[in-house]
């Protein structure tokens, strides 16, 4: 039974990735003018130091997309390339490949993404659970309205507000970038502190906005759980309040929250990207922004493909983790 479930989820991942790759392949070809080709020609015309590179690039482009070959052959070559994660050359940072570009920045993004996700999920869930718990202090109830208001706004809008007040007015934090201009990344403690200082504002923007979402979701789940019969027996057993809160209420309410985590990955990624691009934080978001700005189509397509792939993989992993948390899914055996 588990095997069938696994296969199905894996199959879904493959379909998603294949769809993404296919879209990436056909979309540029839908317009009568092929933007990639145009771009290369444009760069050739404008001359500059890339002249020699242009020849190579055009050749690579031709070979890769095999414009002389029938469409279906091109398509399969393309799929093969994608399967090997060969995303082609960056149009503007030649001879770097798109993969290389991504590799340079991915560590930054993942770092912030993980940190903000862990913080906002755990703090938010705990906060939401406490708000819903009848035995918690009353003042928590006043948090609900502000949480709602904050969570409805996109993260980067919040980021703008933060930049204005904390970075510009109060000069507490730097306004943009991953580290102070001119610093050499040398892995020293001072360098990391600098990075941290630059990362705080973008991180806070994302955390505050997502926190509200998780808190409200958890609160809703706790309310549902509190109406369940096992809560009555738990109290009737004379259990300590804390035990009931954590082992009975939260433990059960967390399960749908984690499902929600899986479903919201897409939003998390897009939110993160936009925040990064706002702050100029040297992650994937900034890379994407720059690539769009300089019309580096290969990079844009490659980056989005990698993002879709990553989200698919993470979703799959979460799907696999879920049965470990919910015993009801784990075993279906009944005993007489």
């Amino acid at each position, binding site marked *: 039974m588990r095997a069938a479930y696994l296969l199905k989820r894996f199959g879904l991942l493959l379909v998603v990735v294949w769809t993404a790759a296919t879209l990436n392949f056909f979309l540029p070809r839908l317009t009568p003018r092929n933007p990639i080709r145009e771009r290369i020609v444009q760069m050739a015309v404008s001359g500059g130091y890339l002249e020699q590179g242009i020849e190579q690039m055009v050749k690579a482009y031709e070979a890769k997309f095999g414009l002389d070959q029938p469409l279906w052959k091109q398509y399969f070559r393309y799929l093969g390339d994608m399967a090997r994660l060969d995303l082609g050359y960056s149009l503007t940072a030649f001879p770097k490949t798109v993969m290389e570009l991504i590799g340079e920045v991915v560590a930054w993004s993942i770092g912030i993404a993980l940190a903000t996700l862990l913080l906002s999920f755990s703090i938010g869930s705990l906060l939401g659970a406490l708000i819903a718990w*009848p035995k918690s202090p009353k003042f928590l109830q006043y948090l609900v309205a502000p949480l709602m208001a904050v969570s409805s706004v996109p993260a980067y809008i919040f980021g703008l507000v933060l930049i204005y007040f904390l970075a510009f007015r109060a000069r507490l934090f730097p306004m943009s970038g991953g580290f102070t201009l001119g610093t050499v990344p040398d892995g020293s403690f001072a360098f990391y502190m600098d990075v941290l200082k630059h990362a705080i504002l973008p991180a806070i923007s994302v955390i505050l906005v997502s926190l509200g979402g998780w808190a409200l979701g958890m609160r809703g789940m706790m309310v549902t759980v509190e109406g*369940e*019969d*096992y809560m*009555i*027996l*738990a*109290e*009737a*057993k*004379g*259990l*300590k*309040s804390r*035990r009931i809160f954590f*082992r*009975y209420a939260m*433990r*059960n309410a967390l*399960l749908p929250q984690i499902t929600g985590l899986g479903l919201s990955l897409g939003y998390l990624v897009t939110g993160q990207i936009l925040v990064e691009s706002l702050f100029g934080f040297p992650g994937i978001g900034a890379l994407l922004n720059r690539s769009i700005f300089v019309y580096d189509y290969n990079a844009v397509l490659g980056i989005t493909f990698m993002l879709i792939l990553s989200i698919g993989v993470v979703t799959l992993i979460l799907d696999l983790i879920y049965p470990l*948390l*919910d*015993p*009801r899914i784990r*075993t279906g*055996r*009944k*005993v*007489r």
Partner: protein
Amino acid sequence: MDPILSARDLSVYYYTERGPVKAVDHVSLDLQQSMRLGLVGESGCGKSTLAMALMRLIRPPGRIVHGEVLLDGVDLVKLSAEEVRRTRLSKIALIPQGAMNSLNPVMRVREQIADGIVDRDELFSIAEIEARVTELLESVELDPRVAGMYPHELSGGMKQRVCMAIAISMRPKVIIADEPTSALDVVVQRQVMDTVRRLQEELGLSIILIGHDMGLMAQSVDFLAVMYAGRLVEIGSVEDIFLQPLHPYTQLLISTLPTLEVRGVFRGIPGITPTLLNAPEGCLFHPRCLKATDACRSEETPVLKEVSFSHCVSCYLYEDNK
């Protein structure tokens, strides 16, 4: 001898947007040591609310408006939350309605039996707890291997037995069983009730058994209390209630029971239960009562009075001990 559990003039109201709902109104009853008391009535008559109130498990918008609940001489209503928590399970335990959903789906059976015992001031070793869990499971006729399972892996009857094991785990004085067999089929019902009786005899428990199946009651309890619309209308021994029902409502209840001897057309009780928001004046039953008198319609609700030895009724027909 003093009763082990006693409710004195207990009232529980639910405060809704449209006004207070008097779910339990001026109820007094005594439970003696080792006695088995049955509590019957229609759905919505307040029996479950009364059970919850006896354990101080009433949640907002409900409140215990007035009255006392004396357990072994101590008034539970006046205790602090922490003190009440200590008496639960150790002195008074609940076998809940709907055992299907009363067990935490993400905890193993062993942990759920153990955590009630563990959350006390005494410390136990893991071995002691494990031994106790096994002992409890065996006493409710369950294989000790059940301890390692999750609730969804058990059948309905087994889940009910786990709940029973939990209820007796600290040898309480009183057990309140709220419709423990309503969701089970007849065969399992019988087995479960047999186990309940055996436990009660072995441990000397006092039991309040709540239900609406009069036939089952007759087989399982010594005394029977009848509730209607939040009030206690009659209480007496099983023989008294079945052979000489005094209150018109009780009489109708008994008469609706099919028997093997009588053939004929069966009638239900005419009318519907009154809304507890705007209760009629006088005796709550008078709109449906065939023997209602003017006194029943106008005067205050009748009080519980003893008519013969340990047989009480609240009805104007017996005001002068006719």
